[in-house]
Structure formats: structure tokens, C-alpha cells
């Protein structure tokens, strides 16, 4: 009897993740899906505004696998040609364009933000002179700069990259400057006592001590660059995930719109979680 109980307890423990929390999560998801299906079938809302979950799943499958087209991937760097053509579902061509725009935006806005943030963080006078301006400009809605970006960089990917870069610049500057100021002064004094030169101080003390702050900056910058770039794509574009969402809206293809939004949210939250894990950042407390 005792042996049976021991075996039962062992097998219960052997099924990981099936605790009360997991069961509650499953119950919540099941309730949401069931309610969704009921609303979709009842016709309480306008027809097709809430499509059946199966219609969304089918649209998701179609989105990721069908409408194969020739996709031109162009990663040329100046005189070095890095260009090829691939046959793939249309979605991945749009995803590729959006990822490239976000990547460039993060590179430009994030790198310049990091450099300026490090300078402001290291110099108290400059910090007091310029940080208030950046601090108060930070929470303004950046999408309002889009008309200016179109005038400066045209209707193509340039204006979307610029939108993303402007959006991510501010949080990266402020986070990097705060990161420099939070470095333990003892570490810097230890470096000085070992007569570390500027390069050694930067690589052996500043950068390792700032790793969480830099990763947090990149995480914030990525999230904001993604929003800036995609919003610009929804406003005026003929390519990218933002364009796909607007295309589904104009065609009133609701399952496809839901599918596009699901993929986008999964990618955005996934990228955010990945960077958070990289920097050991608590996703709840870092809000």
C-alpha cells in the first residue's frame, strides 16, 4: 500500500508543470477559446468581425505557407553585393522587409543612443545640460514625426527605418545614461588602484558592469523600434507586416488580420523575452 502511494506520488511529481497554476492557465485559455467560439457562432457581433477560431487557425496556416512568390533579399553593403532571389510564401518576404527595417532602426537609433547615453552618463555637466530635454521629449508620441520623415526620406523603407530609429533613440539614451551612473564606484577605484588604462577600464570594468543596463536598453529600444516601424508601415507603405495588416483591413479579411496580429505579437513578445533572459531581467518588475 505504502509502495503504491509512493509510486503514485512519484508519478504525480514526474509530470512537470501540471500544478494548480498550469491547470488554471489551461482553464483560462479554454474559457477564452470557448467564449470566442460561442460569440462567433452566435452572431451577436457583426458577421465576420469575430471569426471562428478554426477560421483564424486556417488563415494562420495559409498565411505561413501559401501565396508563394519570388522574394528578393537584398543585404548589399555598398560595393559588396549580397542579393539573391528566393521562392517562398509571401508572408516571409514581408517579414524579411520588416525585420530588416527594424534591425536597421535599432542599429542606427540604438547605437547613437548608446553612445550619447554613455557620454551623458559619464559627464555630470553634460547630463544636467541635455538629459532634461531628452527626458521630457522621450514620452511624446513619435508617430507624429512621420510626415517629416516622409518628406526627408521618401515613401520607401527609409522613412520607416527613420521612424524606428527616432522612436528607439530616446529610451536607449536614458537607460544607458542611468546604467553608467549606477556603476559601483568601488569597481572604478579598484581599476585605478591597478593602474588600468582607459581601454582596460572600459573593457574590464565599465562594459561588464553595464551589461544588464545595455541589454535592458536594447530590449526597450527593440520594442519601441518595432512599434515605430510597424506603425509607419500601416500608415503609408506597400510592403512589410504593417502593410499586410492594413491590406487585410481594407479587404475585410478578418481571419487573415487576426492571423497577422497573432504572428506579430508572438514574434514581438518572443524577442522581448529572449533579450530579457539574456540579461537576466525580470519581465514583471522591469515594467
Amino acid at each position, binding site marked *: 500500500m505504502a509502495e503504491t502511494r509512493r509510486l503514485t506520488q512519484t508519478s504525480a511529481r514526474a509530470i512537470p508543470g501540471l500544478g494548480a497554476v498550469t491547470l488554471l492557465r489551461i482553464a483560462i485559455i479554454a474559457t477564452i477559446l470557448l467564449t470566442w467560439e460561442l460569440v462567433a457562432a452566435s452572431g451577436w457581433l457583426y458577421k465576420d468581425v469575430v471569426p471562428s477560431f478554426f477560421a483564424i487557425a486556417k488563415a494562420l496556416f495559409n498565411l505561413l505557407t501559401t501565396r508563394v512568390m519570388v522574394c528578393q533579399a537584398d543585404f548589399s553593403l555598398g560595393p559588396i553585393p549580397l542579393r539573391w532571389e528566393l521562392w517562398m510564401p509571401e508572408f516571409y518576404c514581408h517579414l524579411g522587409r520588416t525585420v530588416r527595417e527594424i534591425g536597421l532602426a535599432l542599429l542606427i537609433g540604438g547605437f547613437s543612443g548608446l553612445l550619447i547615453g554613455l557620454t551623458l552618463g559619464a559627464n555630470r555637466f553634460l547630463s544636467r545640460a541635455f538629459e532634461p*530635454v531628452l527626458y521630457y521629449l522621450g514620452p511624446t508620441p513619435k508617430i507624429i514625426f512621420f510626415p517629416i520623415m516622409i518628406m526627408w526620406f521618401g515613401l520607401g523603407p527609409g522613412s520607416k527605418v527613420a521612424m524606428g530609429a527616432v522612436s528607439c533613440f530616446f529610451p536607449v539614451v536614458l537607460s544607458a545614461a542611468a546604467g553608467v551612473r549606477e556603476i559601483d564606484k568601488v569597481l572604478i577605484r579598484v581599476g585605478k588602484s591597478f593602474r588600468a588604462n582607459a581601454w582596460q577600464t572600459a573593457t574590464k570594468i565599465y562594459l561588464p558592469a553595464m551589461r544588464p543596463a545595455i541589454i535592458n536598453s536594447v530590449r526597450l529600444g527593440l520594442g519601441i523600434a518595432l512599434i515605430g516601424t510597424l506603425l509607419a508601415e500601416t500608415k503609408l507603405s506597400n510592403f512589410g507586416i504593417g502593410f499586410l495588416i492594413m491590406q487585410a483591413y481594407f479587404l475585410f479579411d478578418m481571419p487573415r488580420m487576426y492571423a497577422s496580429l497573432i504572428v506579430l505579437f508572438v514574434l514581438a513578445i518572443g524577442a522581448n523575452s529572449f533579450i530579457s533572459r539574456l540579461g537576466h531581467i525580470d519581465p514583471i518588475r522591469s515594467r
Partner: protein
Amino acid sequence: MAAKSDFVWQKYGPAIVGFGAVAVSIIFIEILIRIGVINRFIVPLPSQIAVSFERVILEEEIPRRFLQTAGECLAAGILVTVVGIAFGALLHRVHLLRQATEIWVAAMASAPTVLMYPLFMVIFGRSATTIIMMGFAAGLAPVILKTVEGLSGARRVLINVGRSFNLTERQLFWKILFPAALPTIFVGIRLGLIFALINVVGVEFLINFGGLGQLINDLAERYDLPGTYAAICFVILVSVLFFMAMEKAEKWLRPGA
């Protein structure tokens, strides 16, 4: 004397340098445009922008637009505060629910919710409701998270005092937990209102409906460059003033923070 001037420089020097740099940049851009280095059909003269402020305020119904945007922000803010605090309190009370869903709320905070505006347009139409609901969706997560954090951070000794007075659960919440958590909850409300404002103005611009956001879109579509830049400056000014007011309110609530 030298010490006094040094003190004055230490105190006001950074502000002088900061504002001076901004002023010099504006003058420099004006010169570059006048000598033809920057195309004046892409970047209007800063002096033209300054002059067009009056025109934009008088001709584009700025007070009405401002009130409309403020009203949408207020509606979104009330929704965010009421629903956010209620849901946060529920998560604090039901520990299992908190364990199961807090990570989802955190994920929602990092999700690009503003991109759901086409979906909201289908559901609510091209109307103020869409704008308010977008502001609400964007601002909800920080209020929930900060409410949970504030209620969980209430000092144990205060709760014990309440229990020693035989307070009911309701009394304990309203007389001890909620007042103790209020400063932290207000941080969440401030963040939520800022997110709501950003999204309200952003969605107004994107769907070309409403107050200040629509004004920028209108002026840009008319290719009124000085007007567009002036309207953008006006929106930035409103956002900065709103942000500063929220900060003052937070400092008043959390004097030691």
C-alpha cells in the same frame, strides 16, 4: 566672489548650456536653409514655423481639438485607472490567479498593442471609441502590475495592527492596504496615462480622426510645411506639460521618492 560665480555656474550653467545649444541649433538651421544648404521645401524656416503658430491656433480650431484629445485621454485614463486597480486588487487577493496571469500581463505590457488599431476600427468604427479603447489597451498593464506591487509591498506591521483591531477584510483593504499602496499605484497610473496619451494622439494621427493627431495629418496632407511643424511642436509642448504635471503629482504623493 570667485566662489560665488562658481556656485552660480554650477547651479545654472548646465541649463544655460542646454537651452543655448538648442537656440544655437535653431539659428544654425535657419542660416543653412537661407543659404540653400537645406532645401526649404523639405524643412521650413524656423522663423516661418514660429509665425505660423498663431495661424494654426486661430484657424485650425486648436482649443476644440485640444479639448477633444484631452477628453479622449481623460476617458481612457478613467477606464485604465478603474479597471487596472480593480484587476490588480483581484490578482493580489487571489494568489493562484496572480501566479497564473501576472506573466501574461507583463507580456501584454511589452506587446505592440497599438498595432491592433485596424482591428479596433473594424469593431468600433472610425470613431472616438476606437481611440479611447486603444488608449485604454495601452495603459492597462502598468496600472495592474503596479497595483499588485503596491498592495504586496504594504508593511506587515500595518496589516498586523489592522488585524489586532479585528478589521474585516473589506476594512483592512480600504483603511490599510489601499492607502499604503497608493503611492506605488500612482506610479502605475502615471505610466498608464502617459501610454494612453501617446496612443490617443498616435491613433488620431493614424486614422485621421479627432483632435491634435488629426491636425498634424491634415496639415501634412495639405503640404502646409510650417503649419505641420508648428502643430508637431504644439503636440510636443502639450505632451511635455502633461508629463511634467504627472511628475509633480507623483512627487506630491511620494515626497521621499
